[in-house]
């Protein structure tokens, strides 16, 4: 330990600060980790129960066929748009303020996507036959498109996390502060030679472009899963983009929450600066308006169409049994974040934390409001309206999914620098000059006469 400590001290300042969490762990971390671990284990136990006895252990019924698991699926895959998409867009647009936040965002993506992808499997009546999806693939089914896009997305975003991390892994390997073999393996012989660096940046550039359509496709397809059925208020053309916007929105919110917490527990105030919160807050503001626009468009078209089956669901959401989640969603997704993020003073850690949490909750409720009210209101008007309340098993698995994700994220911060060391360094060394040149480049060329 002392050895590692000495080696850490020998590093430059950025690396020293950012690698500190890798070798220093407080009791608070262990406490939190064991609490989360216990919840996760509890949820796994609940799943074993469900596996043993069948989906009857849930609160699902007919026609309320999809519940918590599918809500979680949509929600978590949505959160996963935090990283890759945001970091890719910022990277492509050469937004220099990104440098501190891309890594934490990409980690959210990679870790949460697994938790999202596992939900439909938890939801399967016959998880033992999962491989039938490959053995008897039926390409007409949107579910299969979804399997494919999620697989692509997981692969792409994992690579997109890993490659930009290579220089950092090399730094850790060279610093020899922790698990030498592990980092030697991960760093894969990267020596940060100019040639390697040039190639790496090229690949990252390409990946950043590739990953965007994949990410967009993932949540579009998830939207389509619903839209391709004839159920009232699912069968909507807007669902693809609506889901993508919602996904990015929840992703930004989740990222903000993560940033505030990371900043606090790992003392990263020097890296997550007010400008980050300001800019992210602006993004949140923009997306709250976009969300409002899409939601309004969605409900307005349903309302004007006035198709009886649609209206049953519509009123169930607006003023019926689902009015509370609906208006709470509207509050959490629009009213609160909009009100907060409008004001510059609130685009600071505390303000964004509140807004971020509100949006995360609101977006979960949005998924709930999409899945459940439609499910319980069958299109066939002679069928009675169903009721749904999640069972203990579902709630346990829900809790376990959240705790499992947070736990994994926590553990990840203990193995990987959560802020890219080399990008910060690069920013300091190269970008300041580059940006100055670039900005100069944007400006109109001074004319010859003036000279």
């Amino acid at each position, binding site marked *: 330990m002392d050895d590692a400590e000495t080696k850490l001290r020998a590093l430059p300042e950025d690396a020293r600060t950012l690698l500190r969490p890798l070798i220093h762990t407080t009791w608070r971390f262990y406490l939190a980790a064991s609490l989360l671990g216990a919840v996760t284990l509890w949820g796994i136990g609940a799943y074993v129960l469900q596996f043993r*006895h*069948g*989906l*009857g252990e*849930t*609160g*699902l*019924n*007919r*026609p*309320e*066929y*999809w519940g918590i698991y599918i809500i979680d699926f949509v929600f978590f895959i949505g959160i996963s748009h935090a990283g890759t998409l945001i970091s890719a867009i910022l990277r492509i647009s050469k937004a220099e303020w990104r440098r501190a936040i891309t890594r934490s965002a990409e980690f959210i993506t990679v870790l949460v996507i697994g938790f999202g992808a596992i939900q*439909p499997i938890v*939801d*399967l*009546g*016959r*998880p033992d*036959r*999962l491989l*039938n*999806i490959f*053995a*008897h*693939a*039926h390409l*007409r*089914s*949107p*579910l*299969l498109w979804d*399997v494919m896009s999620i697989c692509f997305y997981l692969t792409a975003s994992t690579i997109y996390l890993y490659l930009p991390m290579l220089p950092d892994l090399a730094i850790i390997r060279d610093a020899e502060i922790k698990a030498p073999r592990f980092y030697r393996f991960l760093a894969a012989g990267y020596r940060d030679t100019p040639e390697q660096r040039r190639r790496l940046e090229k690949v990252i550039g390409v990946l950043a472009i590739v990953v965007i359509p994949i990410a967009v496709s993932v949540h579009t397809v998830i939207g389509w*899963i619903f839209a*391709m*059925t*004839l*159920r009232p208020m699912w069968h909507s053309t807007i669902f693809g983009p609506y889901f993508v916007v919602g996904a990015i929105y929840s992703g930004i919110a989740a990222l903000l929450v993560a940033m505030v917490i990371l900043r606090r527990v790992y003392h990263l105030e020097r890296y997550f600066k007010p400008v980050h919160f300001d800019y992210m807050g602006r993004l949140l503001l923009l997306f709250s308006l976009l969300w409002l626009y899409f939601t309004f468009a969605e409900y307005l078209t349903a309302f004007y169409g006035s198709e009886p089956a649609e209206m049953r669901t519509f009123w169930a959401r607006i003023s019926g049994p689902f009015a509370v989640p609906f208006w709470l969603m509207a509050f959490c997704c629009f009213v609160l974040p909009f009100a907060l993020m409008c004001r510059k003073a609130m685009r600071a850690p505390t303000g964004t934390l509140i807004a971020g949490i509100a949006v995360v909750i609101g977006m979960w409720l949005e998924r709930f409001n999409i899945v459940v009210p439609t*499910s319980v209101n*069958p*299109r*066939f*008007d*002679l*069928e*009675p309206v*169903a*009721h749904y309340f999640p069972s203990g098993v579902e709630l346990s698995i829900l809790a376990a999914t959240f705790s499992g994700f947070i736990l994994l994220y926590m553990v990840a911060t203990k193995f990987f620098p959560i802020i890219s060391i080399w990008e910060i360094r690069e920013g300091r060394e190269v970008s300041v000059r580059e940006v100055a040149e670039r900005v100069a480049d944007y400006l109109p060329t001074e004319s010859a006469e003036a000279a």
Partner: protein
Amino acid sequence: MPRWGMVIDLDRCTGCAACEVACKSENNIATVRPDQADMGRAMSWMKVETKIEGDFPDTRLSFAPRPCMQCDNPPCVKVCPVSATYLSPEGIVGQIYPRCIGCRYCANACPYTAKYFNWFAPAWPDSERAHLDPDVSVRPRGVMEKCTFCDHRLQQAKENARAAGRPLRESDFQPACADACPTRAIVFGDLDNPAHRVSTLKNDPRATRLMESLGTEPKVYYLTQKA
């Protein structure tokens, strides 16, 4: 190739639910416990839907027996990721239980809510297993199931006809619901065969189909004076 279809005369239906019970008996449909029924998990491939309007004494009530519509353009088939549900050449939407993964997507896609899920393994008292129909699977838990127009009866009818060396007749193949109906409100046959009653009844001016506007092309027609 026949195209099997059904015509249900709602003006003849007394809502007695004989079709429902006959179907359950014929197709080994599991009975759920009372608490499960309360949750809305009761299964009935053929279900007599009820609509009550008005207030005493001007109450009106109508019944509509609802089997699977066996759509020609079935929304459930399109969405199944593993081809566990598919449209057979004779127009019956089949469900292959050993392949189904239980994602319930088809059930969500079906606008008629005609598909049922096995939330638990079917539970019968041991003694009652004796009355299970040996020609039909007992569905394991976790798979979807649905009305098949008593397809096993079709198989048997074909077998009998072949053994007797004669073509299949209309009376050879009747699903259990049509068989049991005391008012003969349910008529079954080949929609494309002019010798079968359904092919004329389906052109009756009273004929309508459920949610025709969805374009699912159901092969179950309803006859009713009231639109």
